[in-house]
């Protein structure tokens, strides 16, 4: 397994663990109701969310290192890394489409959407984006 491939796999697993942790915490603290009324829940989830993004960014960052034993990342790795945003784009589009269509249909009669939803939209879209990057890298390795 190529070093970048290994790193993408670790990122994906770590991202899934973070996502499950955030969802469990969100549900355990009262779900949407608490999220919209309790500022401490919002702050806690936001802090954890930023921690997730930072840990993912650290692991997913492209790196190039030459050592005495050989090359860690070469042109094929970089080409795969360059193509990963295609998967990211699809994931982001699908997540946003699901949110927008779902919320619009659900709140159609009210004519407006409660203010906490955009928060959750951002959280989930960024989670989908970061997970999709790792997934895109893994797909790239499978294909080439």
């Amino acid at each position, binding site marked *: 397994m190529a070093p970048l491939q290994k790193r993408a796999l670790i990122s994906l697993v770590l991202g899934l663990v973070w996502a499950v942790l955030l969802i469990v915490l969100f549900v355990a603290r009262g779900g949407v109701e608490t999220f919209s009324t309790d500022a401490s829940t919002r702050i806690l989830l936001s802090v954890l969310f930023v921690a997730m993004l930072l840990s993912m960014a650290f692991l997913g960052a492209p790196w190039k290192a030459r050592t005495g034993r050989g090359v860690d990342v070469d*042109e094929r790795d970089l080409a795969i890394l360059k193509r990963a945003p295609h998967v990211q784009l699809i994931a982001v589009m699908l997540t946003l489409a699901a949110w927008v269509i779902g919320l619009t249909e659900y709140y159609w009669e009210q004519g407006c959407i409660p203010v906490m939803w955009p928060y959750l939209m951002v959280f989930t879209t960024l989670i989908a984006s970061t997970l999709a990057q790792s997934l895109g890298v893994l797909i790239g390795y499978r294909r080439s």
Partner: protein
Amino acid sequence: MGDAAIRNSIRRLRFDHDEMTQEELGRLAGCTRQTIISLEQGKYVPSLELAFRIARAFDTTIEDVFEFDG
């Protein structure tokens, strides 16, 4: 990338060169062992620069390593 019309003789050339390992070729050409594996399986077409480096590692010309099936 996968349906390349460019074939290569890397595997044969490695064996002709004292059974050079993929690791060793990767080190000489400046790429990873995984890329050499991918090249040998015909899944990846290298850049011109890498193709030249691989040819140089075998001390031969690029035409002896790569063949265009177009």
